[in-house]
């Protein structure tokens, strides 16, 4: 059997590796972005000089041949689902028995006037990173959009001495995800690191004749800049299948086995939209971890061990300049209804812990931390088994995943909570 995977990101590659572990199927992975798998999440560190591109490749180059995973460095231009084949820019066609669409995302296009000027660009791919080297001699940049990629791009440019204005429409940083206290902390942190964060700020237009010269904010203010970062989010990359009979909505629609409406065609990772997501999970989750977990379970399914996609308790993490963030379980931006939470924080060093729980049963539902680290395994287990707040507070020290000798927080959190009740 020939399994063809389009996309060599985390989801496609995880699928390939696991299929290899489970079977002798012929495996071909096609990508037009890079010859070998690299970690998209590490792109920023190349620009900042922490690593070279080769460091972002999790496997050495010999790995693929040794494991008989054929790599094709080309773009799929056309997909024919009737005779199960696809064509490449080189003119070659490849036929498949099973097809995995792991196409990832594309940056959401900026609707702003002037978005087509040179010097305006998103940050998603290796090619975007290469283009970014054009910023070598610039002095000022404006980044539009306050998601996780926006702050990364801001940090990148800032690391090379560029004055960065980060224009965010929301009134608090990333407040569609972060509860107000955390959003405020992150915003303050970004400012303290020398990035000019403008909250509640829309960008009216990008100005310049050929190259970007300035932006005009909603307030009428003009900011001179030689670069504009367009980071207002990503959308599923489904251009390739527009003309096929594969069903899409925001992403490629898949069932619990990650199968599309067509047999033998699956979709995973950023480009997939789960028709009926588990409670507490969203239909499209464009993060590294879900891509990986989808790849793991799809490989089982393809190798005749049908395995429904079950991502378990939600978790995620990020880093805002120097401030680390981890989240586990259910921590909505607006904690209301049956849920409530306690929030503990400290300014020196900046750190905070939020525990979300059910008001009536006192069962723990989620954790949010900034500036400290929690043990994933225990957070997951306690949420899954519905441990009570009493238990959680008495065992809080076990959750601590900070390096040795770091200032402890458990007793402070506990006494704050006890004072509250």
């Amino acid at each position: 059997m020939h399994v063809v995977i389009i996309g060599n990101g985390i989801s496609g590659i995880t699928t390939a590796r696991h299929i290899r572990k489970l079977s002798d199927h012929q495996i071909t992975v096609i990508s037009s972005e890079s010859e070998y798998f690299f970690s998209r999440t590490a792109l920023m560190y190349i620009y900042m000089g922490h690593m070279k591109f080769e460091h972002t490749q999790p496997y050495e180059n010999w790995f693929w041949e040794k494991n008989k995973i054929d790599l094709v460095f080309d773009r799929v231009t056309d997909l024919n689902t009737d005779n199960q084949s696809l064509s490449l820019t080189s003119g070659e066609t490849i036929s498949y028995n099973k097809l995995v669409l792991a196409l990832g995302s594309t940056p959401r296009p900026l609707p702003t006037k002037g978005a087509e000027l040179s010097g305006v660009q998103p940050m998603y791919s290796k090619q975007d990173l290469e283009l970014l080297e054009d910023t070598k001699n610039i002095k000022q940049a404006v980044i539009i959009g306050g998601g996780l990629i926006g702050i990364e791009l801001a940090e990148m440019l800032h690391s090379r001495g560029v004055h960065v204005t980060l224009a965010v429409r929301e009134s608090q940083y990333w407040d569609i995800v972060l509860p107000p206290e955390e959003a405020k902390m992150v915003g303050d942190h970004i400012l303290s690191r020398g990035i000019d964060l403008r909250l509640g700020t829309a960008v009216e237009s990008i100005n310049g004749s050929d190259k970007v010269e300035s932006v005009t904010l909603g307030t009428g203010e003009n900011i001179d800049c030689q670069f504009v970062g367009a980071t207002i989010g990503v959308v599923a990359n489904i251009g390739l299948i527009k003309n096929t009979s594969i069903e899409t909505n925001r992403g490629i629609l898949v069932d619990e086995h990650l199968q599309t409406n067509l047999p033998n065609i699956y979709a995973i990772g950023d480009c997939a939209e789960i028709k009926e997501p588990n409670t507490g999970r969203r239909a499209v989750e464009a993060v590294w971890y879900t891509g990986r977990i989808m790849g793991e379970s799809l490989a089982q399914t393809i190798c005749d061990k049908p395995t429904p996609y079950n991502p378990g308790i939600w978790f995620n993490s990020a880093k805002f300049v120097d401030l680390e963030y981890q989240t586990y379980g259910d921590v909505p931006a607006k904690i209301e209804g049956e849920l409530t939470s306690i929030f503990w924080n400290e300014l020196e060093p900046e750190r905070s812990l939020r525990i979300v729980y059910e008001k009536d049963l006192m069962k723990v539902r989620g954790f949010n931390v900034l500036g400290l680290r929690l043990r994933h395994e225990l957070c997951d287990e306690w949420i899954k088994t519905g441990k009570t707040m009493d238990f959680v507070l008495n065992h809080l020290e076990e959750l601590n995943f900070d390096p040795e000798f770091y200032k402890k927080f458990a007793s402070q959190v506990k006494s704050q909570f006890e004072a509250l009740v």
Partner: protein
Amino acid sequence: MNRLGTILVVIGFGIFLAIPFLTEHNVSDSFITKEYNSEERAKLASSAYTSILNQDITTWKLLATTDEAIALVNKSVIDTYGFSGEDIIRLENLAHNNSLNAQSIEALWGKGNFKVEAFKNYGSWLFDREFSSDEELESNIKQVTNNIAQYEVIPKKGIDKYAAKSLKYSISKHSITGLLQNNAVLFLLLTFGLTAIGGLLMLQVFMDEKPGIKNNGIFFHPAKARKWLGIIIGTLLISFYILLYFFPEYMGGWIRIVDPISYKLNGSEAGQFFLYGFMYTTSMLVMGARMMAKYRHNKYQLIRTGSVMFFQTIFAFLIPEILVRLNQPYFDFKNAWPLDYDFFFDFELQKLIAGGNLGMFMLVWGIAFSLIGVPIFTYFYGKRWYCSWVCGCGGLAETIGDPFRQLSDKSLRAWKIERYMIYSVLVFAVVMTVGVLYTYFTGASELLGINTFSMRQVYGAFIGAGFSGVVGTGFYPLMGNRVWCRFGCPLAAYMGIVQKIKSRFRITTNGGQCISCGNCSTYCEMGIDVRSYAQRGENIVRASCVGCGVCAAVCPRGVLKLENDSPTNRVNTTNFVRR
């Protein structure tokens, strides 16, 4: 501040590099007599020195002259004590008459004569022998007389290789005059002083930034990314180690400027290893301060760096010097065999045994520390307790070497080479020690047909000096800061086995949080591909991990935690990632 610091470092280091060229020597007749340590040799040597006597000359001129003088001495002692062409003909004649034996040569030159006794030692196998041809006879006799010249005459009457080495060093060091001789303290301040102050001022770069990971621009940096400056630094370091171990006679000027400190500490003049210890310690302190500034948000790094700075300064540098001042054996209490490979050498053992109660205590301490302390501590804390908290080599790597940690090779191939090399050195160290002890207790010079003395010489030259010094440190800017610890250190190999087989230490991977970014692997100085474990949700249990904690510090997602916990199920894997 940073600018000023850089300028001071460049000036201080520039003056340091200039010192060999500023060093002047002046030798007098009486000085030569004293240094050659025998009227006879001094007289023979003096003709070489006549043209430079009482003149200010360079080190090169002095050493070239000394080489000539030594050659003169050796030539004339061979003329005097060796066998001349005529002597050889006489011996041949004896042999032709079948009367080459002890009595006949005693009859020729007299009983008790140097030549006679030497020939009896080296040539008795020729006595009363038949030779098939004159050629055979001649070549055999010449072989004996050459051996006598080389192994008897020169060592006993002239100046052999080893004596020449120390003579040259002594002449060079003790004949310094003028600027450096009179201004040692000034030059100490101008070199070490300026460089240290400059180095500390340069820390302002880190202090200007907020606490946090400071790896910006590392791979664009001329020194930190194996670019031109890195290659220059590497070349300088390698040259320095070659001078230190093999040509200390050229380092007289540098050694001279640390004399004042040596006198203060141990009451006598400095030697090349005092200079080395002093440089090692001061640079470790300055670069340790740098490490602390860089990682000031990370308490593990602060404490650990403080610890290596403390152990180097107090245990490796000050205590041994003070012991010497108190007429006690020089001893580094924190050094452990087999890194301290000469601990069981006869002269070391004799030194300790002769050292009275304290010496005996040192002997017992050294053995107990190496054979009991090391594995027990390693069981409880992993080898990090030594490698990145106590050890001098590790301390150097973690401070001066920190800017280069990202240069270690992470490939599978490098890991394979590493295992072959480090365990070979361990086996070598153990075999050599067993051999040396065997010789010590039995007096037999060979073990299983191998001369134990040459074993220890080979180890000393190739591993002790060549590997741990020249390659181990000289290659920092080329292969990362743990070349020695990773590929060569026998103690690291020994603790690594304990750490791998039974220890409470591991690096825990935080469930499924790894994003495979590669920061951990890039900054692992031991070249461990940390990511390959972390992305599988597997804990890291590797013999080579020195527990520096930098992987955990640079991980942007809080995935890694160094901890000591129950040894069962250490590699335990959570079920967040399917393997």
